[in-house]
């Protein structure tokens, strides 16, 4: 909320400088958004009188001015402006002067003629039409009236104000007004607060003879108050009011409109002025709009209304969108003679919904949305009438229409000083507590330890002792709070088992040279097509965000592969030759339409590419993860649509499918602009988390030597090596120590359709050195098993 500091001084003694004020207010809960010092940056610019103008010999547009700048002799300044005459008073920037924005003016020559400064336009001084009439005129700013030459221009233009923009937290709508912030300043600075005049005189008559007011929906309009003012004398509002309105970011219009705006800014209660003579049937009806009704608002826009919108109607049509904006038809104009003045409370959610639905945002609805005080309605009305009286803007008719139910009474909070101290842990003296609360307008009495606080309705945010503690501390000062080390039983914090496991997996992957990535949880729903997912793939059932930032961020992901490939794509396009990435995140699954929280499945993706990477590198990484988690693995061919059909596998961890991995299908890679082989995996961490790892017990190191035997085989070309290994393993039984594949070959000397495979097998017994017979028996079993698979032993 922007406020003129000069204007605030009408309500409160500000006995400190701006710097100190803006340092203190944030510590009481009011942050400063910005501070604008009018005339900031203007130096050595004075009011000057043009004594003589002569044309410039070498230019058809420059003029040479002899200026009285308050010095003994006239000063010569060359200007290009045409709107000046001898005898005018204008702003002159002298030699070595400064304009806003750091512009430095020094003496110089303009086409050979000395110029000891510059005549200034309003724009060059940083002024707008609202600051000074004529400020936006093309050319030099011509000052009104006569001025002593040499007078500082800031004084002449009245640029002596500071505009402070206070940030008001949403629990304190009451402070978002001149009076509200002035009260807070008076408490912070411990100075006097002066309430403005609310008295006025009426001219008799009776409002009921002019208008009938009714409220049809008292739920949406808990209070409606109206007054009549006759014989309007519409004029510009006084300078002080205009300045206060401009500082707050609004525009002055005329005294009546300005009073309604000013009272809103001053009290926080929006007001509305109706041209009485435009109200049909002399009726005011607060009601819901009817389907099909329309209104043209003050800004000239036409809106179609719906039944949930509250309007102020005359006997026939909506005349105002309640709390949002008035209608064009009943606008106050220069020739308006009679006024119906409104102050009301409208329910904030209704104002918000209507404003949102129609796309209107006004100062008025901003205040209603934040919440207004039902008791403030009357205060604001009286203040407006007293200003009408003070400015002699019209004749106030006796009587008020004031329709309301039960008005809010003060909330009484009973607590003890001890309870408050228990929350803050600082010994604030009891009388200090009482004095702070009273200064804040919370009437407080102390009886022994017992505090009784009467909270006016305008401070509806103060509900209990926690709120009182806050009110006390923000004024007493949070700097009194001294840290105390954590107390309680000494325990080491525990992590969830899932986090412990994922931490270990992450460590393993980092040690294996993988880099962790982080990507958004929502993706482009087109990912399903990009990954070639089939029509009935459950991963197509993505939960959609109702209000996404855009299509590309509109669906919760059901797989992590798309994000991984996007990251790899970025890196490939930036000429990164190789990378190993992993990500741990969640996948979201639910029955659609969504009725409950979805399943969030912890999942890991891995993506690797580069010259040294292949399917088996990735298989090695996965196997390491599986071993770490205590899983026995089995690999089978899989058919993920986004993977190379011949280079992919599903991994079973203790017989549960736990991962799919393989080389990315070239057609899919191409869609990501990836022109190299990429290997990806998606691992279900929930499966791995569920494995209960057996307690680790060490195995004694072998005492007896191992025997190594080589087996050279000839098999069909498509015989999986895994099956041969299984055969060797089952043949060797408990004696098996290790199998190593050391050669695999197809080509010359190998029959068509066959391949040659060679294994080294180590056998060892823990009970003694293997005898020749034992070894031979094991080898025979192995060969037997291999032959059953169709493998042929090569001699």
């Amino acid at each position, binding site marked *: 909320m922007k406020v003129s500091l000069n204007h605030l001084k009408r309500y409160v003694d500000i006995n400190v400088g701006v710097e100190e004020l803006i340092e203190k207010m944030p510590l009481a*809960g009011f*942050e400063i958004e910005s501070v604008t010092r009018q005339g900031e940056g203007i130096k050595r610019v004075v009011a000057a009188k043009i004594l003589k103008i002569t044309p410039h010999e070498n230019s058809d547009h420059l003029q040479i001015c002899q200026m009285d700048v308050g010095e003994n002799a006239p000063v010569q300044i060359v200007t290009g402006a045409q709107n000046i005459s001898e005898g005018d008073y204008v702003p002159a920037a002298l030699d070595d002067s400064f304009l806003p924005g750091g512009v430095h003016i020094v003496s110089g020559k303009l086409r050979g003629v000395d110029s000891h400064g510059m005549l200034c336009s309003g724009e060059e001084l940083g002024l707008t039409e609202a600051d000074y009439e004529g400020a936006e005129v093309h050319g030099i700013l011509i000052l009104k009236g006569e001025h002593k030459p040499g007078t500082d221009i800031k004084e002449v233009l009245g640029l002596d104000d500071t505009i402070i923009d206070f940030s008001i*937290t*949403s*629990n304190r*709508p009451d402070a978002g007004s001149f009076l509200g912030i002035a009260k807070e300043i008076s408490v912070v600075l411990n100075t006097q607060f002066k309430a403005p005049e609310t008295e006025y005189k009426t001219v008799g008559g009776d409002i009921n003879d002019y208008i009938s007011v009714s409220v049809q929906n008292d739920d949406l309009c808990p209070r409606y108050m109206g007054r009549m003012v006759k014989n309007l004398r519409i004029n510009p509002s006084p300078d002080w009011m205009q300045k206060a309105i401009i500082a707050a970011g609004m525009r002055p219009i005329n005294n009546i409109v300005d009073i309604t705006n000013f009272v809103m800014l001053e009290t926080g209660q929006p007001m509305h002025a109706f041209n009485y003579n435009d109200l049909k049937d002399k009726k005011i009806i607060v009601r819901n709009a009817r389907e099909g009704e329309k209104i043209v608002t003050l800004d000239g826009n036409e809106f179609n209304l719906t039944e949930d919108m509250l309007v102020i109607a005359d006997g026939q049509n909506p005349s105002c969108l309640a709390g949002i904006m008035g209608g064009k038809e009943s606008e106050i104009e220069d020739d308006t003679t009679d006024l119906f003045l409104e102050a009301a409370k409208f329910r*904030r*959610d209704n104002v*918000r919904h209507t404003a949102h639905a129609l796309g209107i945002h006004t100062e008025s609805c901003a205040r209603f*949305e934040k*919440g207004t005080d039902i008791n403030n309605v009357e205060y604001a009305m009286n203040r407006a009438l007293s200003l009408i009286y003070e400015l002699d803007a019209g004749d106030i008719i006796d009587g008020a229409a004031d329709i309301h139910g039960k008005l809010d009474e003060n909330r009484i909070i009973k607590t003890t000083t001890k309870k408050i101290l*228990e929350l*803050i*842990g*600082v010994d604030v003296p009891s009388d200090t507590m009482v004095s702070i609360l009273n200064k804040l307008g919370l009437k407080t009495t102390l009886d022994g330890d017992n505090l009784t606080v009467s909270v006016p309705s305008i401070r509806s945010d103060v509900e209990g*002792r*926690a709120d009182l*503690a*806050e009110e006390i*501390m*923000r004024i007493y000062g*949070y700097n009194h*709070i001294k*840290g*105390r080390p*954590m107390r309680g*039983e*000494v325990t080491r*914090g*525990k*992590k*969830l088992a*899932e986090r412990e496991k994922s*931490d270990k997996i*992450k460590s393993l992957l*980092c040690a294996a*040279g*993988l*880099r*962790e*990535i*982080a*990507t*958004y*949880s*929502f993706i482009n729903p087109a990912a399903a097509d990009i990954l070639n997912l089939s029509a009935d793939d459950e991963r197509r059932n993505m939960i959609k965000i*109702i*209000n996404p*930032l855009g299509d590309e961020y509109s669906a*919760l992901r059901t797989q992590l592969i798309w994000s991984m490939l996007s990251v790899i794509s*970025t*890196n490939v396009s930036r000429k*990164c030759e190789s*990378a190993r*990435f992993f990500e741990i995140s969640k996948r*979201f699954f639910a029955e659609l*339409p969504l*009725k409950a*929280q979805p399943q*969030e499945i912890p999942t890991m993706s891995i993506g690797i590419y580069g010259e040294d990477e292949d399917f088996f590198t990735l298989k090695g990484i996965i196997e390491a993860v599986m071993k770490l988690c205590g899983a026995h693995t089995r690999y089978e061919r899989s058919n993920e649509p986004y993977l190379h059909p011949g280079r992919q596998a599903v991994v079973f961890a203790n017989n549960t499918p736990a991962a799919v991995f393989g080389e990315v299908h070239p057609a899919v890679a191409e869609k990501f602009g990836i022109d190299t082989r990429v290997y990806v995996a998606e691992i279900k961490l929930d499966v791995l988390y569920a494995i209960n790892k057996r307690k680790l017990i060490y195995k004694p190191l072998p005492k007896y030597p191992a025997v190594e035997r080589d087996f050279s085989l000839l098999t069909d070309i498509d015989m999986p090596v895994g099956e041969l290994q299984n055969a060797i393993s089952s043949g060797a039984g408990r004696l098996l120590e290790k199998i190593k594949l050391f050669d695999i070959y197809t080509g010359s000397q190998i029959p068509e359709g066959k391949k040659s495979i060679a294994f080294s097998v180590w056998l060892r017994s823990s009970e003694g050195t293997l005898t020749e017979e034992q070894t031979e028996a094991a080898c025979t079993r192995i060969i037997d098993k291999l032959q059953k698979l169709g493998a042929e032993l090569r001699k």
Partner: protein
Amino acid sequence: MKEKLEAIRLAAEAAANEALDEKQIEEIRVKYLGKKGELTSLLKQMGGLSPEERPKMGQLVNDAKAKVESLIAERRARLKEKATELKLKAETIDITLPEKEVNRGGLHPLSIVTNDLIDIFQSMGFDVLDGPEVETDYYNFECLNVPADHPARDMQDTFYLADKILLRTQTSAAQIRTMENRKPPIRIICPGRVFRADEVDATHSPVFHQLEGLVVDKGVTMCDLMGVLEQFAHEIYGKDVKVRFRPSFFPFTEPSVEVDVSCTECGGEGCRVCKGEGWIEILGAGMVHPNVLRSCGIDPDVYSGFAFGIGIDRITTTRYKISDIRLLFENDKRFLEQF
């Protein structure tokens, strides 16, 4: 014979001293000390000596043998040393040649910071919990004292998935789930991913990370909150930073405070980093609102507590002076490799 012995010894010593390599020294050893060596054969010639002379001469020959032996051993050692020296010298490499690269992996900077935070709070006895990323309106707002249409909901634009189902806007929802399931004393943190409908720019991301902290016990005050946050700030920002509270508003805490630390760049003098204020805002905190305690079945007349919410991304970007938050989610390898 004595003279002969002396002559042989001198000759042997001279030869040994001149030997240039292992082969020559071995030849010398054989020549003098071998089975048929000159000194050995001298012993054999002692038969012609008198019984009185024999032991004397024997002694002399053995002494000479020992001398020559030790000289040969010495020479041999020296030669070996020299040979090694030469070999090592020949093997000298250019140590500035490029290393054989070890493929070093690493955690994402957000994980590094999260782990650091977890360590700090775990050491203070906080349990580390998780919560769902998709929350209900009840846990994300209502239970946190943010009723429907309360203006506080304006403070954060929420991604909705369905009526009353949304992507959590803060980790505070975890407070409620914890208090429903645990009895005081409660001391937990919940790090996690949160979502707000912020347009992406250098300082805003629709996906970011928070760490929620909650303590509920008898007699917990704002001084305890200050104590915990001071310890946190000292670990993260340095021993010398000061911590201050500024009043603020969050619906689920009362009193609510913004927490600032003295600027780590200028030490509080005022600089560009702190915009001349000398303080940097780091987190929001407060005493758990009595309504929140009550709605979780905890009696606010018996227990009190505090909660705080730390922006992990913010700490990450300030710690590493990352000027654009988008870098965290872009995952350029050259960026990731710096951590």
